[in-house]
């Protein structure tokens, strides 16, 4: 529903502003131009983006994801001690985190859902502190390789689509840290 308000608000504001500034003639043309531009942009990105997701699929089938999952278990045991007592939950959580790290959003979501279902057992519809933390970590995004964005940059003619990596890592680390700190604080002060 949120996007309904964003979209309708933008169109309505455009009409008001267009009428006020006398740009109304350009408005209809701009709407059609936008729709055409959307398809052009999509087609121009298609080839490179598909090549990209293809290469990532090869890497993930080659076991890179499973390798990363093993590396993250010790850290997860500290962050989510209760959930990680159950080996099935631990494996779902670490697979989710490593798919996220590689920027494989499509693989991360089903794994994350499985982890969330396992963690919610016996909670009676209310999220436990650890489940809140797990979801917060997922919303903060912890990507080492933002593959979709890199694919889009490559498709738009960028010579070195991964030159943003250090900046992405810095920003991801900051947002995950902010999420963790806020979680720590809210865990203590939250009253249901």
């Amino acid at each position, binding site marked *: 529903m*949120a996007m309904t308000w*964003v979209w309708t608000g933008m169109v309505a*504001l*455009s009409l*008001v502003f*267009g009428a006020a*500034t006398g*740009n109304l003639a*350009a*408005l209809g043309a*701009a*709407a059609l131009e*936008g*729709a055409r531009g*959307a*398809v052009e*942009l*999509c087609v121009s990105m*298609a080839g490179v*983006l*598909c*090549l990209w*997701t*293809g*290469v990532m*699929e*090869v*890497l993930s*089938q*080659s*076991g890179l994801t499973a390798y990363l999952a093993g590396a993250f278990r010790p850290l997860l045991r500290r962050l989510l001690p209760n959930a990680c007592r159950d080996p099935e939950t631990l494996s779902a959580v670490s697979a989710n985190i490593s798919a996220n790290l590689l920027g494989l959003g499509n693989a991360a979501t089903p794994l994350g859902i499985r982890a*969330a*279902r396992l963690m*919610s057992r016996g909670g009676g*519809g*209310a*999220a436990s502190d650890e489940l*809140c933390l797990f*979801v*917060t970590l*997922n*919303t*903060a*995004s912890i990507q080492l390789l*933002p593959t979709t964005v890199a694919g*889009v*940059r490559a498709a738009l003619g*960028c*010579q*070195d689509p991964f030159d*943003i990596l*250090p900046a992405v890592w*810095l*920003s991801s680390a900051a*947002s*995950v*840290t*902010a*999420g963790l700190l806020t979680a720590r604080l809210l865990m203590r002060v*939250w009253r249901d």
Partner: protein
Amino acid sequence: MRLSEWIVPLLLCFAGLYGACRRVDVYAALTRGAEEGLGVLLRVLPSLVGLLTAVYMFRASGAAEFLGRLLAPLLSAAGIPPECAPLLLVRPVSGSGALAVGSELMERCGVDSPVGRTVAVMLGSSETTFYTVAVYCGAAGITKTRWTIPAALVADGVMFVVSALAVRLVFGG
């Protein structure tokens, strides 16, 4: 010889060899992944049409300029280029919408411009907060998300500011 000239051929070669050594049907995996990419595009295209229509209208009417001028003091105090304003609105609520708005900004301002880079970093270091919360908690049968959304939104706010800051630090300017 520049490193960037090597990246694409090397990556393709590495993926092929690594996969083949691990007994993966590399070509089948490549085409399956490409199909997944097509899926991403198919999911983005409808939002792209909807949002770009609105964005182009917004810009042609002069409303974008007005909003930009209105938000500019706030955004520049946080070090965020004012062009990014639409992305900040859409990012937490729609992933395909954010990719649509972001791609258009990158194309219009240039992928290697400060705005283009900031947009890319913002897209690369964030998730669709409300969608993620809805999907995970919905699938787990959670009706009380408690402090998840406040914590996630704080993380998003920090991410926006640090993305702009990180681009300035890494690329100068």
